[in-house]
């Protein structure tokens, strides 16, 4: 496709351009081949040959028609900077500004390399090489092949593929960053006191586990039958429950605070991307906490192995997103008061933005607060029976993340979550008017938020 144009016959080129026009005018999806029925195996008939020929032909023509680029008028040029391995857009323009890149003081937009790749591949920006000697003009345009050659390692290439996959689905994706956090800055900072107390807490919590089992070992011997008297069947289950050791999974903000430890690069598995559901009101500078977090893993690389339990635990401890068990997604007040951006509360930052006279009109217009508040009314929430909710909890788990598995170009997403079977009283029927199990976590978190 990228042969020098003078090597091609003229009508060949012309045909190409007309098909571009056709794609632009018609609905683009209408020109794509559809996935049809498949056969079991080749049987040597002409019919099958014909069908295969058609399927391939549709595929090839789509590939050939898919020319990347932009017209002169709406062209946005991005320059690759080899020093920082990122790209700069001197005159940024387009929808992507809303969710991608970072502006500098001169009004230029800096893109991460994978963002640059993604935009170039879909034809939104024209990739060029940034030349440091300014004495000669003329850009050096880059091809897609050139850009792929600029990947530093396989992990970067895989991360880009996963990023593109998510972007094509419409999600907002950014690199995971400690600047955006549920946890107050004091907690995230690795002050020795804090880490020590964290460690102490962890040791204590494991001891309390063991204490419980030691206690059980003592209580649960044959003599206990002579000592204990069971007057109802729940009592039997309750004492049985004590016999089984189980890990304590954080359910509340307080427990999350205690269990949190920020990720460090020495971990073999790390959260790579923060992912938000598509949201037209997304603020690049003041994002909400992400809806999902994604870790990436190349199944075939011999330098990586499937994460062990310990590695998974480290990832769980570092998770930092909109935990759905703390508050509803729509409870903006709670989340704004529990989101720290560069160490400052999001609510405070939003307020500062609003009180700034320059932004007054803008901020007011974009504030969707009232409907959100209405949603907060607890009675208006869609209620599910406690039994159903209980069935859902072990399935959904509490903290969770997505593991994107790369298999030679095919990406699969697996959701990995901490299920808590231990604290579910499956036999227990709450007395009427006493829904202790479902209401408990919510009540505690709202206290912390206040």
């Amino acid at each position, binding site marked *: 496709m990228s042969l020098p*144009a003078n090597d091609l016959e003229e009508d060949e080129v012309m045909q190409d351009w007309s098909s571009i026009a056709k794609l632009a005018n018609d609905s683009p999806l209408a020109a794509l081949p559809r996935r049809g029925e498949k056969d079991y195996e080749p049987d040597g008939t002409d019919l099958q040959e014909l069908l295969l020929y058609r399927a391939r032909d549709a595929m090839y023509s789509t590939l050939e028609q898919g020319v990347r680029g932009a017209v002169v008028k709406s062209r946005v040029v991005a320059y690759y900077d080899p020093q920082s391995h990122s790209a700069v857009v001197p005159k940024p323009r387009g929808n992507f500004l809303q969710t991608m890149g970072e502006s500098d003081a001169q009004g230029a937009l800096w893109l991460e390399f994978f963002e640059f790749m993604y935009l170039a591949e879909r034809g939104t920006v024209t990739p060029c090489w940034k030349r440091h000697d300014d004495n000669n003009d003329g850009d050096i345009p880059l091809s*897609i*092949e050139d850009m792929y050659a600029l990947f530093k390692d396989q992990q970067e290439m895989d991360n880009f593929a996963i990023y593109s996959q998510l972007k094509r689905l419409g999600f907002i994706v950014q690199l995971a960053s400690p600047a955006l956090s549920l946890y107050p800055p004091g907690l995230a900072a690795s002050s020795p006191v804090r880490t020590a107390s964290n460690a102490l807490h962890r040791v204590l919590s494991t001891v309390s586990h063991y204490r419980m089992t030691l206690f059980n070992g003592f209580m649960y011997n044959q003599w206990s039958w002579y000592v204990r008297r069971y007057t109802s069947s729940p009592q039997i289950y309750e004492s049985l429950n004590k016999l089984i050791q189980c890990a304590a999974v954080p359910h509340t903000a307080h427990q999350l605070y205690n269990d949190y430890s920020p990720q460090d690069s020495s971990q073999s598995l790390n959260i790579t991307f923060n992912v938000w559901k598509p949201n037209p009101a997304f603020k690049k500078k003041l994002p909400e906490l992400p809806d999902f977090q994604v870790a990436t893993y190349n199944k075939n690389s011999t330098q990586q192995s499937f994460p062990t339990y310990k590695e998974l635990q480290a990832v769980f401890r570092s998770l930092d997103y909109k935990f759905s068990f703390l508050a509803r997604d729509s409870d903006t007040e709670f989340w704004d008061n529990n989101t720290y951006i560069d160490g400052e509360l999001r609510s405070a930052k939003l307020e500062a933005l609003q009180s700034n006279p320059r932004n007054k009109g803008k901020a007011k217009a974009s504030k969707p607060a009232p409907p959100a508040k209405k949603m907060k009314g607890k009675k208006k929430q869609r209620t599910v029976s406690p039994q159903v909710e209980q069935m859902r909890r072990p399935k959904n788990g509490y903290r969770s993340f997505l593991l994107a598995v790369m298999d030679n170009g095919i990406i699969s997403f697996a959701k990995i979550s901490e299920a808590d079977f231990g604290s579910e009283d499956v036999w227990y029927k709450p007395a009427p008017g006493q829904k202790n199990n479902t209401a408990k976590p919510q009540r505690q978190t709202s206290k912390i938020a206040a």
Partner: protein
Amino acid sequence: MSVCITLVGGAGTILAPLVFDVEAIKKLRTLGICGILTGTLPSATQQNVFLSVPLRLMPEEAMWLYINGHAHFKALPGPTATAVERLLEEESEEICKAAEERLQQSFKLQREYKLEQHRKKLEQLGINQPSKEDHPDSARQSKETKLMEASLFIETPTMSTILTKINDKFGDEQAKIDRLLCILVAQFSNWDNYLLFQALKNEGYVLSPGARFGGKYIAYPGDPLRFHSHLVIRDALHYKNEPLDFLELAAGARLGTTVKKLWVIGAPTRESDAHDSAKTQDNVSFYSVEWAGFG
């Protein structure tokens, strides 16, 4: 036609083999090598079902193509950015000029095409093309030209003109390529798996990555565009010495049967030098397992 596979080097590593040319992709498909298309399709950017170049190959596919003489490699020593910088220091003027020429050439063709289209449209509408000497129309014409200039298309080419020069400088010595391939296989797989791949490929199967079905590969009886796959192949297992976990057997066979595939275990039968056995074919044996659901 020998297909060109791009191998990008990183810091002591090789990145996954890629193919950028659509003609090459066609050729590979007739050979039963399908790879996975991974790039965003510019004409439909909001979906993941139909993707575009580059085609990412399994290392085994690249190896098989190379060993059977269907492909050659464009190897780039990493990091590429510094190599490009070095090249630009010497030849930036030249490259710039070539790029500019290409752009102007494409503009010229587009202008001709657009004017032709414009003329045809006017003819259809029955309006006579105003001759250029007509004075009052010249203002409108210059406006039209301006509009047309703004609507010219600038293509981001798929294939590189710069990298070829770097590749030429890097040289194409056999020993170097062989070493790169060894690194590639060691990094993403092993020779036993390659032997499985080769044996199945030579049986006429088309193979693709199999993690979605819990295996190393899945095998199709023909082009995956038209046929369902029949086999899920596990990583090579020397079953004479190595144990097979029963739970894995049950899980693999049950999953395979549920999706109407056989679960396959295979291994090279003789321990031999990797390079020798890569050329011979009759030294791999397979077992297939099916969940009978009897009784």
